[in-house]
Protein backbone atom coordinates (compact mmCIF):
# COMPACT_ATOMS: atom_id res chain seq x y z
CA UNK A 1 0.00 0.00 0.00
CA UNK A 2 1.14 3.43 -0.86
CA UNK A 3 0.61 6.02 1.83
CA UNK A 4 1.61 9.60 1.57
CA UNK A 5 2.89 11.34 4.67
CA UNK A 6 -0.17 13.62 4.67
CA UNK A 7 -2.61 10.68 4.51
CA UNK A 8 -0.84 8.90 7.33
CA UNK A 9 -1.07 11.94 9.59
CA UNK A 10 -4.75 12.45 8.70
CA UNK A 11 -5.74 8.87 9.41
CA UNK A 12 -3.66 8.84 12.52
CA UNK A 13 -5.43 11.91 13.81
CA UNK A 14 -8.85 10.39 13.12
CA UNK A 15 -7.85 7.22 14.91
CA UNK A 16 -6.57 9.09 17.93
CA UNK A 17 -9.70 11.28 18.14
CA UNK A 18 -11.93 8.25 17.69
CA UNK A 19 -10.37 6.41 20.59
CA UNK A 20 -10.21 9.42 22.90
CA UNK A 21 -13.75 10.79 22.54
CA UNK A 22 -16.34 8.46 24.03
CA UNK A 23 -19.56 7.94 22.14
CA UNK A 24 -21.58 9.59 24.88
CA UNK A 25 -19.80 12.88 24.25
CA UNK A 26 -21.32 13.07 20.78
CA UNK A 27 -24.85 12.67 22.07
CA UNK A 28 -26.93 15.84 21.86
CA UNK A 29 -28.12 16.83 25.35
CA UNK A 30 -31.73 17.90 25.65
CA UNK A 31 -32.23 21.00 27.82
CA UNK A 32 -34.14 18.94 30.41
CA UNK A 33 -31.32 16.45 30.68
CA UNK A 34 -28.80 19.26 30.99
CA UNK A 35 -30.82 20.88 33.74
CA UNK A 36 -31.07 17.64 35.64
CA UNK A 37 -27.30 17.32 35.53
CA UNK A 38 -26.96 20.68 37.20
CA UNK A 39 -29.49 20.05 39.94
CA UNK A 40 -30.96 16.61 40.26
CA UNK A 41 -33.70 16.04 42.82
CA UNK A 42 -32.35 12.95 44.44
CA UNK A 43 -34.73 10.04 44.78
CA UNK A 44 -33.72 9.10 48.28
CA UNK A 45 -35.21 10.52 51.43
CA UNK A 46 -33.48 13.82 52.10
CA UNK A 47 -34.10 16.69 54.51
CA UNK A 48 -33.95 20.25 53.27
CA UNK A 49 -34.85 23.71 54.48
CA UNK A 50 -36.41 26.81 52.98
CA UNK A 51 -35.93 30.31 54.39
CA UNK A 52 -38.16 33.10 53.12
CA UNK A 53 -36.23 36.28 53.87
CA UNK A 54 -39.13 38.42 52.66
CA UNK A 55 -41.11 37.26 55.70
CA UNK A 56 -38.41 37.44 58.36
CA UNK A 57 -38.90 40.38 60.75
CA UNK A 58 -35.78 39.63 62.78
CA UNK A 59 -37.52 38.91 66.07
CA UNK A 60 -34.97 36.21 66.83
CA UNK A 61 -37.50 33.85 68.40
CA UNK A 62 -35.96 31.04 66.32
CA UNK A 63 -32.52 31.72 67.75
CA UNK A 64 -33.92 31.75 71.26
CA UNK A 65 -35.92 28.56 70.78
CA UNK A 66 -32.94 26.82 69.18
CA UNK A 67 -30.66 27.64 72.08
CA UNK A 68 -33.16 26.38 74.66
CA UNK A 69 -34.14 23.31 72.68
CA UNK A 70 -30.60 22.20 71.96
CA UNK A 71 -29.02 23.10 75.29
CA UNK A 72 -26.53 25.60 73.93
CA UNK A 73 -25.77 27.83 76.95
CA UNK A 74 -27.87 30.93 76.43
CA UNK A 75 -25.39 33.64 77.27
CA UNK A 76 -22.47 32.37 75.23
CA UNK A 77 -21.64 33.83 71.84
CA UNK A 78 -22.17 30.60 69.93
CA UNK A 79 -25.30 29.74 68.05
CA UNK A 80 -26.66 26.97 65.88
CA UNK A 81 -28.92 29.40 64.11
CA UNK A 82 -28.64 33.16 64.00
CA UNK A 83 -30.04 36.08 62.03
CA UNK A 84 -27.93 38.53 60.13
CA UNK A 85 -29.04 42.05 59.31
CA UNK A 86 -28.00 43.60 55.98
CA UNK A 87 -28.57 47.33 55.69
CA UNK A 88 -27.67 49.38 52.65
CA UNK A 89 -27.55 53.14 53.21
CA UNK A 90 -28.47 55.71 50.61
CA UNK A 91 -24.80 56.53 50.14
CA UNK A 92 -24.25 52.91 49.07
CA UNK A 93 -22.53 51.72 52.22
CA UNK A 94 -23.52 48.22 53.37
CA UNK A 95 -23.60 47.43 57.08
CA UNK A 96 -23.84 43.83 58.23
CA UNK A 97 -24.33 42.76 61.81
CA UNK A 98 -25.83 40.14 64.07
CA UNK A 99 -25.74 41.40 67.64
CA UNK A 100 -25.67 38.41 69.99
CA UNK A 101 -26.76 36.26 67.07
CA UNK A 102 -30.12 38.05 67.37
CA UNK A 103 -31.24 35.82 70.22
CA UNK A 104 -32.69 38.96 71.81
CA UNK A 105 -34.09 40.13 68.48
CA UNK A 106 -33.72 43.40 66.61
CA UNK A 107 -35.53 46.20 68.37
CA UNK A 108 -33.71 49.30 67.08
CA UNK A 109 -32.35 50.67 63.82
CA UNK A 110 -28.80 50.46 65.11
CA UNK A 111 -26.61 48.40 62.76
CA UNK A 112 -23.20 47.74 64.34
CA UNK A 113 -24.43 49.47 67.49
CA UNK A 114 -24.66 52.89 65.85
CA UNK A 115 -28.14 54.32 65.66
CA UNK A 116 -29.08 55.69 62.25
CA UNK A 117 -32.08 57.61 60.93
CA UNK A 118 -34.72 55.64 59.08
CA UNK A 119 -34.43 58.10 56.19
CA UNK A 120 -30.78 57.09 55.63
CA UNK A 121 -31.70 53.50 54.83
CA UNK A 122 -32.04 52.54 51.18
CA UNK A 123 -32.86 48.90 51.77
CA UNK A 124 -32.27 46.13 54.18
CA UNK A 125 -33.19 42.60 55.04
CA UNK A 126 -32.85 39.93 57.68
CA UNK A 127 -31.21 36.66 56.73
CA UNK A 128 -31.60 33.72 59.08
CA UNK A 129 -28.65 31.37 58.87
CA UNK A 130 -28.17 27.80 59.95
CA UNK A 131 -26.23 24.73 58.88
CA UNK A 132 -26.78 24.09 55.18
CA UNK A 133 -26.64 20.29 55.60
CA UNK A 134 -24.55 20.04 52.44
CA UNK A 135 -24.67 17.06 50.13
CA UNK A 136 -20.88 17.28 50.01
CA UNK A 137 -20.05 18.63 53.45
CA UNK A 138 -16.50 19.94 53.52
CA UNK A 139 -16.54 19.79 57.32
CA UNK A 140 -16.99 16.02 57.25
CA UNK A 141 -14.12 15.44 54.86
CA UNK A 142 -11.56 17.00 57.17
CA UNK A 143 -12.49 15.19 60.38
CA UNK A 144 -9.40 13.16 61.30
CA UNK A 145 -11.28 10.70 63.55
CA UNK A 146 -14.63 10.07 61.86
CA UNK A 147 -16.57 11.96 64.50
CA UNK A 148 -18.76 13.88 62.09
CA UNK A 149 -20.80 12.36 59.33
CA UNK A 150 -23.80 12.66 57.08
CA UNK A 151 -26.81 10.51 57.89
CA UNK A 152 -28.59 8.62 55.13
CA UNK A 153 -31.30 11.27 55.07
CA UNK A 154 -28.78 14.04 54.57
CA UNK A 155 -28.27 15.60 58.00
CA UNK A 156 -24.71 16.25 59.13
CA UNK A 157 -24.18 15.30 62.78
CA UNK A 158 -21.33 15.33 65.30
CA UNK A 159 -20.52 12.27 67.41
CA UNK A 160 -20.02 13.93 70.78
CA UNK A 161 -18.42 10.88 72.33
CA UNK A 162 -15.79 10.59 69.61
CA UNK A 163 -14.96 14.20 68.69
CA UNK A 164 -11.50 15.24 69.88
CA UNK A 165 -12.23 18.95 69.53
CA UNK A 166 -9.45 19.69 67.04
CA UNK A 167 -11.56 22.32 65.30
CA UNK A 168 -10.73 21.45 61.68
CA UNK A 169 -14.40 21.18 60.80
CA UNK A 170 -15.15 24.54 62.39
CA UNK A 171 -12.62 26.34 60.21
CA UNK A 172 -13.56 24.36 57.14
CA UNK A 173 -17.24 25.28 57.02
CA UNK A 174 -17.79 28.00 54.41
CA UNK A 175 -20.98 29.05 56.20
CA UNK A 176 -19.45 29.47 59.68
CA UNK A 177 -22.19 27.17 60.95
CA UNK A 178 -19.98 25.22 63.35
CA UNK A 179 -18.63 26.24 66.70
CA UNK A 180 -16.98 24.86 69.80
CA UNK A 181 -19.56 23.82 72.38
CA UNK A 182 -18.47 25.25 75.73
CA UNK A 183 -19.94 22.43 77.81
CA UNK A 184 -19.36 19.24 75.85
CA UNK A 185 -16.03 20.61 74.55
CA UNK A 186 -16.72 19.21 71.11
CA UNK A 187 -17.61 20.69 67.77
CA UNK A 188 -21.30 21.50 67.56
CA UNK A 189 -23.74 22.52 64.88
CA UNK A 190 -27.35 22.68 63.81
CA UNK A 191 -28.83 19.19 63.51
CA UNK A 192 -32.11 20.26 61.86
CA UNK A 193 -33.40 19.21 65.31
CA UNK A 194 -32.81 15.58 64.36
CA UNK A 195 -34.60 14.48 67.54
CA UNK A 196 -37.71 16.33 66.43
CA UNK A 197 -37.86 15.73 62.68
CA UNK A 198 -37.34 12.00 63.12
CA UNK A 199 -40.39 11.99 65.42
CA UNK A 200 -42.54 13.85 62.93
CA UNK A 201 -42.25 17.21 64.69
CA UNK A 202 -41.05 20.46 63.18
CA UNK A 203 -37.69 21.86 64.14
CA UNK A 204 -37.75 24.22 67.14
CA UNK A 205 -36.95 27.22 64.93
CA UNK A 206 -39.73 26.43 62.45
CA UNK A 207 -42.25 26.00 65.26
CA UNK A 208 -41.24 29.22 66.95
CA UNK A 209 -41.50 31.36 63.82
CA UNK A 210 -44.82 33.22 63.83
CA UNK A 211 -44.22 34.53 60.33
CA UNK A 212 -43.72 31.29 58.42
CA UNK A 213 -40.29 32.35 57.27
CA UNK A 214 -38.83 28.89 57.85
CA UNK A 215 -39.79 25.49 56.48
CA UNK A 216 -38.17 22.14 56.97
CA UNK A 217 -39.17 19.04 55.07
CA UNK A 218 -38.26 16.22 52.73
CA UNK A 219 -36.98 17.53 49.43
CA UNK A 220 -38.31 14.56 47.47
CA UNK A 221 -41.72 14.17 49.11
CA UNK A 222 -44.33 15.81 46.82
CA UNK A 223 -46.52 16.44 49.89
CA UNK A 224 -43.93 18.49 51.76
CA UNK A 225 -44.01 22.26 51.68
CA UNK A 226 -40.31 22.36 50.93
CA UNK A 227 -40.88 20.33 47.78
CA UNK A 228 -43.76 22.57 46.73
CA UNK A 229 -41.71 25.73 47.17
CA UNK A 230 -38.62 24.35 45.48
CA UNK A 231 -40.58 23.15 42.49
CA UNK A 232 -42.65 26.31 41.98
CA UNK A 233 -40.63 29.28 43.25
CA UNK A 234 -37.31 30.89 42.51
CA UNK A 235 -34.87 29.97 45.20
CA UNK A 236 -31.15 30.36 45.63
CA UNK A 237 -28.47 29.05 47.93
CA UNK A 238 -25.63 30.74 49.75
CA UNK A 239 -22.09 30.47 48.36
CA UNK A 240 -22.76 27.92 45.60
CA UNK A 241 -19.20 28.53 44.37
CA UNK A 242 -17.87 26.28 47.13
CA UNK A 243 -19.56 23.29 45.52
CA UNK A 244 -20.91 21.93 48.78
CA UNK A 245 -24.43 21.52 47.38
CA UNK A 246 -26.09 23.23 50.35
CA UNK A 247 -29.66 22.20 51.16
CA UNK A 248 -30.93 25.40 52.76
CA UNK A 249 -32.74 27.32 50.04
CA UNK A 250 -33.48 31.02 50.27
CA UNK A 251 -36.24 33.18 48.84
CA UNK A 252 -35.56 36.87 48.34
CA UNK A 253 -31.79 37.04 48.77
CA UNK A 254 -29.86 40.08 47.65
CA UNK A 255 -26.40 40.57 46.19
CA UNK A 256 -25.27 42.22 49.43
CA UNK A 257 -25.86 38.96 51.28
CA UNK A 258 -22.86 36.73 51.78
Amino acid at each position, binding site marked *: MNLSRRELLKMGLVAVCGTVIPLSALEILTPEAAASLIHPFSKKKRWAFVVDTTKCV*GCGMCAKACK*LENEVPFDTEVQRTWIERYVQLKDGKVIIDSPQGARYGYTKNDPQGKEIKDSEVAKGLFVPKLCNQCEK*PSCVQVCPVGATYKTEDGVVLVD*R*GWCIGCGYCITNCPYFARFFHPITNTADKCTFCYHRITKGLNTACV*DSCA*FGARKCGLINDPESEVFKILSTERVSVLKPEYGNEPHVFYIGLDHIVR
Partner: protein
Amino acid sequence: MSHAWRPVFVVLAAIVFFLVARVILVPSDFSAKNGDYKYQWHRLSSEQYWKDFPVKHKGMEFCGMCHVPILEKLKGGGHQNVQCENCHAMFNPEKKSHPIDLKEISGYLLNIGTDRSRELCKRCHAELPYRPSTYTDPKKGTVKFKMIDPDKHNPSMECAMCHDVHSAGFKTAAK
Protein backbone atom coordinates in the same frame (compact mmCIF):
# COMPACT_ATOMS: atom_id res chain seq x y z
CA MET B 1 19.31 -16.33 58.47
CA SER B 2 20.88 -13.12 57.38
CA HIS B 3 20.74 -10.13 59.72
CA ALA B 4 19.32 -8.19 56.74
CA TRP B 5 15.90 -9.73 57.53
CA ARG B 6 15.64 -8.02 60.91
CA PRO B 7 14.05 -4.76 59.66
CA VAL B 8 11.44 -6.82 57.85
CA PHE B 9 10.45 -8.49 61.12
CA VAL B 10 10.27 -5.13 62.83
CA VAL B 11 7.95 -3.83 60.14
CA LEU B 12 5.80 -6.97 60.28
CA ALA B 13 5.58 -6.69 64.07
CA ALA B 14 4.55 -3.05 63.74
CA ILE B 15 1.81 -3.95 61.26
CA VAL B 16 0.49 -6.71 63.51
CA PHE B 17 0.55 -4.35 66.48
CA PHE B 18 -1.33 -1.71 64.50
CA LEU B 19 -4.01 -4.15 63.39
CA VAL B 20 -4.50 -5.56 66.90
CA ALA B 21 -4.64 -2.07 68.42
CA ARG B 22 -7.12 -1.04 65.77
CA VAL B 23 -9.44 -3.92 66.54
CA ILE B 24 -9.31 -3.06 70.24
CA LEU B 25 -9.59 0.71 69.97
CA VAL B 26 -12.06 1.26 67.14
CA PRO B 27 -15.62 0.71 68.39
CA SER B 28 -17.34 -2.22 66.77
CA ASP B 29 -20.21 -0.17 65.40
CA PHE B 30 -17.94 2.02 63.30
CA SER B 31 -19.01 1.57 59.73
CA ALA B 32 -19.71 3.33 56.49
CA LYS B 33 -23.33 3.24 55.41
CA ASN B 34 -23.83 2.58 51.70
CA GLY B 35 -20.08 2.05 51.42
CA ASP B 36 -19.64 5.83 51.62
CA TYR B 37 -16.36 6.18 53.50
CA LYS B 38 -16.08 9.82 52.55
CA TYR B 39 -19.19 11.17 54.28
CA GLN B 40 -20.87 8.34 56.20
CA TRP B 41 -18.03 6.71 58.15
CA HIS B 42 -19.19 6.91 61.77
CA ARG B 43 -20.29 5.14 64.93
CA LEU B 44 -23.85 4.08 64.23
CA SER B 45 -24.76 4.59 67.90
CA SER B 46 -24.25 8.32 67.49
CA GLU B 47 -27.36 8.57 65.32
CA GLN B 48 -29.39 7.12 68.17
CA TYR B 49 -27.87 9.67 70.56
CA TRP B 50 -29.26 12.50 68.46
CA LYS B 51 -32.61 10.79 67.98
CA ASP B 52 -32.95 10.39 71.73
CA PHE B 53 -32.14 14.02 72.52
CA PRO B 54 -34.97 15.37 74.70
CA VAL B 55 -37.71 17.38 72.99
CA LYS B 56 -38.33 20.60 74.92
CA HIS B 57 -40.61 22.89 72.96
CA LYS B 58 -44.06 21.35 72.91
CA GLY B 59 -46.04 24.16 71.37
CA MET B 60 -49.33 25.82 72.18
CA GLU B 61 -51.34 22.61 72.06
CA PHE B 62 -49.44 21.40 75.11
CA CYS B 63 -50.04 24.55 77.17
CA GLY B 64 -53.60 24.64 75.87
CA MET B 65 -54.38 21.29 77.52
CA CYS B 66 -54.62 23.14 80.82
CA HIS B 67 -54.98 26.76 79.71
CA VAL B 68 -58.03 26.16 77.54
CA PRO B 69 -59.53 29.69 77.60
CA ILE B 70 -56.18 31.27 76.79
CA LEU B 71 -55.61 28.99 73.83
CA GLU B 72 -59.08 29.86 72.54
CA LYS B 73 -58.38 33.56 72.89
CA LEU B 74 -55.03 33.16 71.19
CA LYS B 75 -56.49 31.27 68.25
CA GLY B 76 -59.05 34.00 67.65
CA GLY B 77 -56.59 36.89 67.42
CA GLY B 78 -53.50 38.25 65.71
CA HIS B 79 -51.16 36.20 67.87
CA GLN B 80 -52.55 32.84 66.73
CA ASN B 81 -49.20 31.88 65.25
CA VAL B 82 -47.09 33.14 68.13
CA GLN B 83 -46.12 30.18 70.26
CA CYS B 84 -46.61 30.44 74.04
CA GLU B 85 -42.96 29.52 74.47
CA ASN B 86 -41.78 32.50 72.41
CA CYS B 87 -42.70 34.76 75.28
CA HIS B 88 -43.07 32.40 78.26
CA ALA B 89 -39.94 30.25 77.97
CA MET B 90 -37.35 31.96 80.15
CA PHE B 91 -33.69 31.79 79.25
CA ASN B 92 -32.94 32.76 82.80
CA PRO B 93 -33.89 29.86 85.12
CA GLU B 94 -34.39 32.24 88.06
CA LYS B 95 -37.34 33.77 86.26
CA LYS B 96 -39.18 30.45 86.35
CA SER B 97 -42.53 31.08 87.98
CA HIS B 98 -44.98 28.47 86.76
CA PRO B 99 -47.12 27.58 89.79
CA ILE B 100 -47.13 23.90 88.84
CA ASP B 101 -43.97 21.89 88.30
CA LEU B 102 -44.44 20.90 84.67
CA LYS B 103 -41.31 18.78 84.77
CA GLU B 104 -42.77 16.53 87.42
CA ILE B 105 -46.19 16.31 85.79
CA SER B 106 -45.30 15.86 82.16
CA GLY B 107 -41.53 15.91 81.84
CA TYR B 108 -41.59 19.41 80.40
CA LEU B 109 -38.09 20.86 80.56
CA LEU B 110 -38.29 24.57 79.80
CA ASN B 111 -38.56 27.25 82.47
CA ILE B 112 -41.94 28.95 82.18
CA GLY B 113 -42.43 32.46 83.50
CA THR B 114 -43.86 35.79 82.45
CA ASP B 115 -41.85 38.51 80.73
CA ARG B 116 -43.60 41.87 80.96
CA SER B 117 -40.86 43.97 79.38
CA ARG B 118 -41.43 46.24 76.40
CA GLU B 119 -38.31 44.70 74.88
CA LEU B 120 -40.23 41.48 74.30
CA CYS B 121 -42.95 43.08 72.19
CA LYS B 122 -40.41 45.28 70.39
CA ARG B 123 -38.73 42.20 68.97
CA CYS B 124 -41.64 41.93 66.57
CA HIS B 125 -43.49 45.24 66.74
CA ALA B 126 -40.76 47.93 66.82
CA GLU B 127 -40.91 49.80 63.54
CA LEU B 128 -37.74 49.32 61.47
CA PRO B 129 -37.40 50.57 57.89
CA TYR B 130 -36.40 47.10 56.67
CA ARG B 131 -38.92 45.12 58.73
CA PRO B 132 -41.45 43.49 56.35
CA SER B 133 -44.59 45.63 56.30
CA THR B 134 -46.94 42.78 55.50
CA TYR B 135 -47.89 39.65 57.33
CA THR B 136 -49.32 36.43 55.91
CA ASP B 137 -52.32 35.68 58.09
CA PRO B 138 -53.38 32.03 57.92
CA LYS B 139 -57.00 33.03 57.39
CA LYS B 140 -57.05 36.53 55.96
CA GLY B 141 -54.06 36.21 53.66
CA THR B 142 -51.68 39.12 53.32
CA VAL B 143 -52.41 41.90 55.81
CA LYS B 144 -50.50 44.93 57.03
CA PHE B 145 -48.07 44.05 59.79
CA LYS B 146 -48.71 46.53 62.57
CA MET B 147 -45.65 48.16 63.98
CA ILE B 148 -45.24 50.99 66.43
CA ASP B 149 -42.46 53.43 67.21
CA PRO B 150 -41.54 52.42 70.76
CA ASP B 151 -40.25 55.92 71.52
CA LYS B 152 -43.62 57.46 70.68
CA HIS B 153 -46.17 54.72 71.45
CA ASN B 154 -46.90 55.24 75.17
CA PRO B 155 -43.27 55.11 76.25
CA SER B 156 -42.25 53.78 79.67
CA MET B 157 -45.48 51.85 80.14
CA GLU B 158 -45.83 48.10 79.97
CA CYS B 159 -47.51 47.10 76.74
CA ALA B 160 -49.68 44.66 78.67
CA MET B 161 -51.15 47.54 80.70
CA CYS B 162 -53.40 48.39 77.79
CA HIS B 163 -53.11 45.43 75.44
CA ASP B 164 -54.49 42.00 76.01
CA VAL B 165 -51.52 40.09 74.72
CA HIS B 166 -53.32 36.78 74.21
CA SER B 167 -56.10 38.18 72.07
CA ALA B 168 -53.71 40.74 70.51
CA GLY B 169 -56.30 43.38 71.25
CA PHE B 170 -57.07 45.62 74.19
CA LYS B 171 -57.80 45.00 77.82
CA THR B 172 -61.53 45.45 78.24
CA ALA B 173 -60.99 48.19 80.82
CA ALA B 174 -58.87 50.24 78.43
CA LYS B 175 -61.35 50.03 75.59
